[in-house]
């Protein structure tokens, strides 16, 4: 009996070993190794590997480009997540109602997130450019237009990318909110109606509390994704993080110093760990604020 149990256990280990090995070799090892690298001057170019202590971290905070990337990333996160979440919720409420063509609208709103981000970014780049459609639209409605096109004017470049991001992400998170809405039992609404609760009261007393776990998931995932924004920056700034670093985010900065030119892996790893810490702190705060683990209905 005992030997049979041992046999079973070893079979289990053999079956999960491919995944565990992959995790160890391709995830955990690089994770730990890059922490080590962040204290060295390792660069792919010159092959040197000397211990530098904390100097990478200190140098980062005196690098104006890195400071700009910190600022831009925070603007990006703070400026997109509330909008994406609210829009996604509104869209979900809208398509959850028994209206005509509800399925059509659901697919239509979800569609942008099915298209590759690179393609989306290229489309928006041409919409945003000087003499492009958006400028035309703005001037028709009498709005001021940026001097060098939306993406090449410092004051509008980052916000233009953020706008696109909200537009794409809202549809995707709408679907998750919709799943959350569908899981709220109808009896709750029926009971509330019998008790004479208004629509608004029902929304605030039933719908919102019931959606709390869904909202937490959405905000958490979106926060992590937004902190790591890169592809749209890379494409829409013509791989420059410009104009004048106006769109340089942390991951773009990491790519710029670590993966080309001087290949300063040490500095890049340090920047990556700072990003990791930022995400960790924000995530913990969000979990606390949402009272993770508490019961849904009070």
């Amino acid at each position, binding site marked *: 009996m005992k030997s049979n149990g041992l046999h079973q256990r070893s079979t289990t280990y053999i079956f999960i070993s491919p995944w565990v090995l992959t995790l160890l070799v391709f995830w955990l090892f690089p994770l730990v190794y890059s922490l080590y690298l962040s204290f060295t001057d390792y660069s*792919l*170019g010159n*092959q040197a590997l000397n211990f530098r202590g904390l100097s990478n971290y200190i140098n980062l905070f005196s690098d104006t480009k890195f400071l700009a990337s910190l600022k831009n990333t925070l603007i990006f996160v703070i400026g997109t997540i509330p909008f994406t979440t609210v829009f996604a919720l509104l869209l979900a409420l809208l398509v959850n109602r028994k209206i005509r063509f509800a399925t059509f609208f659901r697919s239509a709103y979800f569609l942008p997130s099915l298209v590759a981000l690179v393609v989306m970014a290229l489309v928006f780049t041409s919409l945003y450019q000087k003499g492009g459609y958006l400028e035309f639209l703005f001037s028709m409605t009498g709005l001021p237009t940026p001097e*060098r*096109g939306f993406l090449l004017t410092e004051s509008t470049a980052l916000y233009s990318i953020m706008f696109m991001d909200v537009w794409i992400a809202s549809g995707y998170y709408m679907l998750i909110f919709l799943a959350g809405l569908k899981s709220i039992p109808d009896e709750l609404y029926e009971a509330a109606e019998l008790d004479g609760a208004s629509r608004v009261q029902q929304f605030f007393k039933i719908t919102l509390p019931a959606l709390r776990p869904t909202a937490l998931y959405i905000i958490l995932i979106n926060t992590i994704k937004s902190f790591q924004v890169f592809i749209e920056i890379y494409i829409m700034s013509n791989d420059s993080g410009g*104009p004048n670093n106006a769109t340089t985010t942390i991951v773009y900065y990491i790519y710029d110093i670590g993966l*080309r030119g001087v*290949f300063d892996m040490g500095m890049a790893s340090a920047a990556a760990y700072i990003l990791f810490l930022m995400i960790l702190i924000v995530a913990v705060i969000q979990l606390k604020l949402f009272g993770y683990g508490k019961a849904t209905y009070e």
Partner: protein
Amino acid sequence: MKKTIYIILAFILIFGLSCGEKEESELTFMHFWTSEDVRPVINLLVAEFEAANPDIKIKLIDLNWSNGHDKITISFGTKSAADIIELGSDWVPEFAAKDLLMDLSGESEPYMDSLMGWEAAIMNDKIYGFPWMLGTRVIFYNKNLMTEAGLNPKIPPRNWEELYDYSKKINELGEQIYGFGSNAYEKFRLYKKFLPFLWANNGKVLEGDDCMLESPEAVEALKYYVALSDIGFLESQRQLDDKFMAGELGFIISGDWLLRMMRGNPPNFQVGACLIPAPKKDNARSASFLGGEFLTVNARSDKKKEAMKFIQFLVSKEPNLEFNLAAGSVTPANKQAAAEILRGGANPLAMVFLQQLNYARPSPVHPQWVQIQGVIEEAVQKAIYHKGQPAEILKEACDQITKIINEE
């Protein structure tokens, strides 16, 4: 069950052993994938070479322009770089400075006169690569817009003053029409647009290890470049090329890829080309950026003899001409091949490229050039956006460059 495993093992052994046996030596060649037209030609050239040298087999490894440099660096880092590597002109000194490339001074000696463009491959009096395909940039202009602006389309701008003046006149033609195509910041591209103006004004980036960007010549060049940009259309190179092809730009600095675009999709206006002008001064001469493709040998390669054989074949007249024509380049490194293009003489725009080649220069050869050019580009960008006076911006840039040079 066991039997099957034995059979499989036996097969693996047989297969493995037969693969291990190698009669001919395999030469790996990392090269850049430029367009579909190039592939059949390079295959043909490889077949021709292999037929003449049955003991050598060429294995092509494709790279592309967006991440080729990274791949090469990583392959050197992991000691898996190919025997022969095609490198952009700026990269030869970068890798040579790290002792990753073989010194080919001896081998290049007999070729000094038959090939052009060696400057970019020379570092500390040693030659690290063979020029293969050269590239330079000229000014293209829209003749129709010049006529509309009351200018003579047969006389392109001959100096800075005229270029500015003509651009301004074309700029005033209408809302969607712009005089000059000014490059927005794109890494590894913007400096190639500014340096010709610096050089034409007798300015320099470096003299030995000293930064020369604070000189009055450099400040003047940047001031002029900013003025030109102010009356121009600021966009990425790709967008500028498109805008020019759409007939909405008067002047644009571009390379031979624009000729290729025009061949595939002829514009509905008359196109002219001229040398990038110099200021109206006695000692000022046109200047342009000299780029190109170089064939280099990995310092770790144990097949130097074979590698040289293949390189010498690629830079000889016929193969060089064939490859350049397929790649759409009008400036082969082999002088006889270039003469052949001149003789063919169909496209007058191509002539301008060959003429500009006489006034084209590579980036200054310096092991830290990758960082230095980054500083120059940031400075030019700042100036274009009027983030300060050109003199201050260049002083700041010089301080940074001096720091970079002294760090190593």
